């Protein structure tokens, strides 16, 4: 009896381990080291007006999201409609981080598809992207009123993900503001 018990326990353990690995979801999605930490400091010119800068201090005071996008990013186009809907009903201020893009292209894109962003920071050489640990657009960070990163999503946003991962993490009148 004992002879067969040990291998059985081992196999069951191994299978449980593998199932956990499979259910983990997108294997490309890495846990962000910024969750629970203050949003990384930055100061960048805005996309539409290089004279005006935008920075971390603009994120404080209420829940906001920082959405990393670029015109070369196919999935950004896919989520754009949802971002437009999100900004249309004033759910949350959306800040853009236009990552490694060309300014004229990006402005044209917003002209054609609409601009859901309060403002987009223009990160031409990707320096701020590195400070935020960005490794693939689109990425979306949820920042709480204290300026702490609460959640990061890799890949396009949609209503389901919004409800499940973002709205659920906003407490104390976050949704209505």
């Amino acid at each position: 009896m004992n002879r067969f018990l040990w291998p059985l326990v081992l196999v069951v353990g191994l299978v449980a381990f593998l199932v956990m690995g499979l259910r983990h979801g997108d294997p490309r999605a890495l846990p962000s080291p910024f969750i629970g930490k203050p949003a990384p400091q930055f100061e960048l010119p805005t996309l539409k007006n290089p004279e005006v800068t935008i920075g971390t201090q603009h994120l404080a005071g209420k829940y906001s999201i920082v959405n990393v996008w670029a015109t070369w990013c196919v999935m950004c186009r896919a989520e754009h409609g949802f971002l437009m809907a999100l900004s249309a009903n004033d759910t949350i201020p959306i800040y853009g981080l236009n990552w490694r893009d060309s300014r004229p292209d990006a402005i044209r894109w917003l002209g054609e598809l609409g601009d859901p962003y309060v403002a987009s920071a223009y990160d031409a050489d990707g320096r701020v992207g590195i400070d935020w640990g960005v490794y693939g657009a689109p990425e979306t960070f949820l920042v709480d009123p204290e300026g702490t990163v609460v959640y990061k999503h890799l890949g396009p946003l949609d209503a389901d993900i919004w409800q499940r991962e973002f709205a659920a993490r906003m407490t104390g009148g976050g949704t209505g503001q």
Partner: protein
Amino acid sequence: MRRLLIPAAAALAVWPAWAIDQDRRFDDPELQARYETLISEVRCVQCQNQSIKDSNVTLAADLRREIARLIDEGRTDEEIVEFLVTRYGEFALYRPRATGKTLVLWIAPFLLVLFGGIALARVVRHRTSLPIDDEPAGKA
């Protein structure tokens, strides 16, 4: 005309080399060696199974540039690794540091060998204590 031929040929011969390596070169061979080691130990988080030395995606190029900048600033290897880990997590390192969460990665192989060894020893001892009752047939 003749006099121009050799410089022209030399320039043509050098031409393709520009395309291959546009990366930073350090004058100091010691710094160059540190740079090469660092970039071969950092995972390209965008492509995940290449180091940023092997990868030519934009993020890998950006990270190489950042590492070169940090070396220029006189940062130590530890500081540069810390810079990467605070932004991208331990996953960005091909050789994760033996701390906290990654400790299991480091000790698991030794534990496996240990358990395997114990199991093997037990099986062997059990077998050697059995009476030898399977004399080769046909010898008797």
